[in-house]
């Protein structure tokens, strides 16, 4: 594998961004051209990814010095390089990003048809792919951070894409602010690593960490602090408790964006980061924290999804929940399983978002499933593809989600049966809410408003073909790559990347698979019993339902506890206890003081020529006095 290949892989979407960004004016009338250019750009990357993949499979790869493109800046005792790290993990991510990315680009050509910001949309989308590629290709934390910020920026721009809608810009702001908290953690983690290792290169850090050859800046807990800080970054980016609140709101963006950025790729960056830093998490033994946060998020988000009626929101909470599973996987040391779930999830969740988009397309942007029903007849392809996705996520045997989820749960059992138990309950809930969605939307009586019903139609080929294409891997990829559980092809492919899992998975795998299947099918059956004929009530009836339907009032709680105190400047007790509150107060105080000084000094600028001359002369006199008397 040559560096040139990776450079082409990386630059291609950037070129697409430039063409769409700069020549948007000329592309205005030629929508199709604009869309296909950017899709082609991603396809080129996809082709390069396949070459890179075959090369890695043949034992190739790129790490350490051979991946260095050039030296970026150099200090006294350190140097930052621009370079790439390509191994099995990287190529898996590359294939997901460019593969799913390409399909979603194609889908967008149809979906965004007629939008006034057509070229702007594709410019942002290509820029996103570019940033995501930097994130996974970099051979050091600095490049990862640059990509990390880049995808965050694109996500923000795309959430607020329809800026005329107040809710869209609000959602963008929320995503931005919440992510800053996470990024701050990531940044601090990076600083800690740099202070300890004097470098940010993966190879250097992992080798020195293995050898115990680094500066213990926080005593023996250096690595613990560093990994936890990095995890804060992951919590923000991958929407885990307590920073998950931005992701459901992010659904304000165009649906293909939700599919690509907020389901398949960007939100999984945190999982990728932990898998990449596996060596550090193993040494620091902080994986359990990750797993606990993950499983709690998985359960919590699944309960919220139970009572939502907005299709995209259900999918969003489902994403949060599935991301929780991935964290459980990487947290319990089953890195390959976590990444495997990332891959399968990218396909089936991407698929479901796109079908949701197809439904929206037909329903004139209606998202409330209570106003749907019986869509199966009018939109057969959408129905079937969605069904495949839902079965995959519900863990129906032999579909992709079944394999990856089962591996994670199996590995979790070895670490903590409690995590396993919660994970199993979540699996039941997942199957239940997904099929609730299916039954209410596609089955039963049609509740579609008459005006909309008349032009209810299946989506055009440019949209349904991608759905069909995505449905195939959603169904089969688990079987192909995951057959054999911990001895599967996927595990063999990635075995050199990750440290050996510390707890050997115990118990008979078939038993676990059986339990998972039963739980998943039970969820589906329960949904069938309950929602085959019925429609969710317009208003939640009892207290628990109300609590869940209102997402545990978390947004309201955050608003009351964090946002309002800041806004009012009043210091609630809780706020004051928190260290951040005090630190924040100091920061704000300093800012206010500086502003005050600035405002005062500003008055010296009177606009009078002679005042300026006086200040010059005073300056001269003072300096002369300094020479005459001080020295």
């Amino acid at each position, binding site marked *: 594998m040559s560096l040139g290949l990776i450079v082409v892989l990386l630059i291609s979407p950037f070129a697409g961004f430039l063409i769409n960004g700069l020549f948007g004016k000329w592309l205005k009338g030629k929508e199709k051209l604009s869309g296909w250019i950017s899709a082609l750009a991603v396809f080129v990357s996809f082709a390069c990814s396949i070459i890179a993949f075959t090369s890695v499979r043949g034992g190739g790869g790129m790490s350490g010095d051979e991946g260095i493109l050039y030296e970026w800046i150099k200090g006294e005792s350190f140097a930052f390089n621009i370079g790439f790290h390509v191994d099995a993990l990287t190529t898996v991510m590359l294939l997901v990003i460019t593969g799913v990315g390409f399909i979603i680009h194609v889908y967008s050509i149809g979906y965004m048809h007629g939008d006034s910001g057509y070229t702007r949309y594709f410019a942002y989308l290509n820029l996103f792919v570019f940033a995501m590629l930097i994130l996974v290709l970099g051979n050091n934390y600095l490049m990862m951070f640059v990509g990390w910020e880049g995808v965050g920026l694109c996500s923000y721009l795309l959430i607020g894409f329809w800026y005329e809608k107040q809710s869209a810009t609000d959602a963008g702001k929320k995503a931005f602010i919440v992510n800053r908290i996470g990024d701050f953690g990531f940044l601090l983690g990076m600083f800690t690593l740099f202070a300890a290792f004097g470098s940010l290169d993966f190879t250097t850090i992992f080798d020195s960490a293995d050898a115990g050859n680094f500066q213990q800046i926080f005593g023996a807990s250096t690595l613990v602090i560093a990994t936890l800080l990095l995890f804060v970054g992951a919590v923000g980016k991958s929407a885990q408790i307590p920073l998950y609140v931005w992701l459901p709101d992010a659904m304000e963006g165009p649906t293909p964006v939700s599919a690509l950025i907020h389901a398949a790729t960007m939100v999984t960056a945190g999982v990728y980061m932990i898998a990449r830093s596996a060596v550090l998490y193993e040494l620091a033994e902080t994986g359990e924290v990750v797993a606990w946060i993950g499983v709690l998020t998985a359960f919590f988000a699944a309960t919220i999804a139970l009572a939502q009626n907005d299709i995209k929101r259900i999918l969003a909470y489902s994403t949060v929940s599935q991301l929780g599973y991935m964290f459980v996987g990487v947290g319990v040391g089953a890195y390959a399983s976590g990444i495997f779930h990332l891959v399968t999830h990218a396909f089936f969740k991407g698929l479901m978002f796109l079908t949701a988009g197809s439904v929206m397309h037909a329903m004139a942007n209606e998202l409330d499933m209570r106003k749907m029903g019986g869509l199966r007849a009018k939109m057969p392809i959408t129905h079937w593809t969605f069904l495949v996705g839902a079965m995959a996520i519900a863990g129906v045997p032999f579909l992709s989600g079944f394999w990856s989820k089962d591996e994670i749960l199996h590995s979790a059992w070895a670490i903590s049966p409690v995590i396993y138990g919660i994970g199993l309950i979540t699996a039941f809930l997942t199957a239940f809410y997904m099929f609730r969605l299916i039954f209410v939307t596609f089955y039963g009586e049609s509740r579609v408003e008459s005006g909309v019903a008349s032009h209810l139609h299946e989506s055009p080929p440019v949209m349904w073909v991608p759905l069909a294409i995505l449905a195939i891997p959603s169904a089969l990829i688990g079987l192909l790559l995951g057959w054999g559980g911990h001895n599967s092809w996927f595990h063999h492919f990635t075995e050199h990347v990750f440290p050996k899992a510390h707890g050997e998975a115990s118990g008979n795998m078939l038993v676990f698979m059986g339990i998972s299947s039963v739980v998943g099918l039970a969820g589906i059956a329960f949904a069938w019993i309950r929602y085959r004929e019925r429609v969710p009530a317009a208003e939640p009836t009892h207290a628990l339902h109300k609590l869940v339907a209102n997402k545990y009032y978390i947004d309201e709680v955050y608003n009351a506890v964090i946002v309002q105190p800041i806004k009012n400047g009043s210091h609630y007790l809780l706020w004051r206890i928190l260290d951040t509150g005090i630190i924040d107060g100091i920061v704000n105080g300093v800012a206010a003081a500086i502003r005050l000084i600035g405002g005062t000094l*500003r*008055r010296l*600028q*009177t*606009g*009078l*020529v*002679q005042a300026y*001359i*006086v200040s010059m*002369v005073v300056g001269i006199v003072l300096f002369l006095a300094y020479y005459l008397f001080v020295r």
Partner: protein
Amino acid sequence: MGLEYYLILSALLFTTGVIGVLIRRNAIIIFMCIELMLNAANLAFVAISRHLGETTGQVFVFFVMTVAAAEVAIGLAIIVSVFKHRQTVNVDEVNSLKG
């Protein structure tokens, strides 16, 4: 006669110019005071040149005179354009740019 007398004279001239710039309010007179400062420098150049017995300083004066003339031409033009807008050349009244 010693060099220092010339230098003291030139320093006095220069200071007079600075004080003029500081206390006068009419832009044109301020400008003339600046010219006075330039001429103080010229005087110093000539005196030093004579003291050293070489001509660089003298040549310098020629250039400074030319520059001063160009400066006067430009300066008057700019002051005139300010006057056209405000009907005054009092620098205290020309202060719309500040902060």
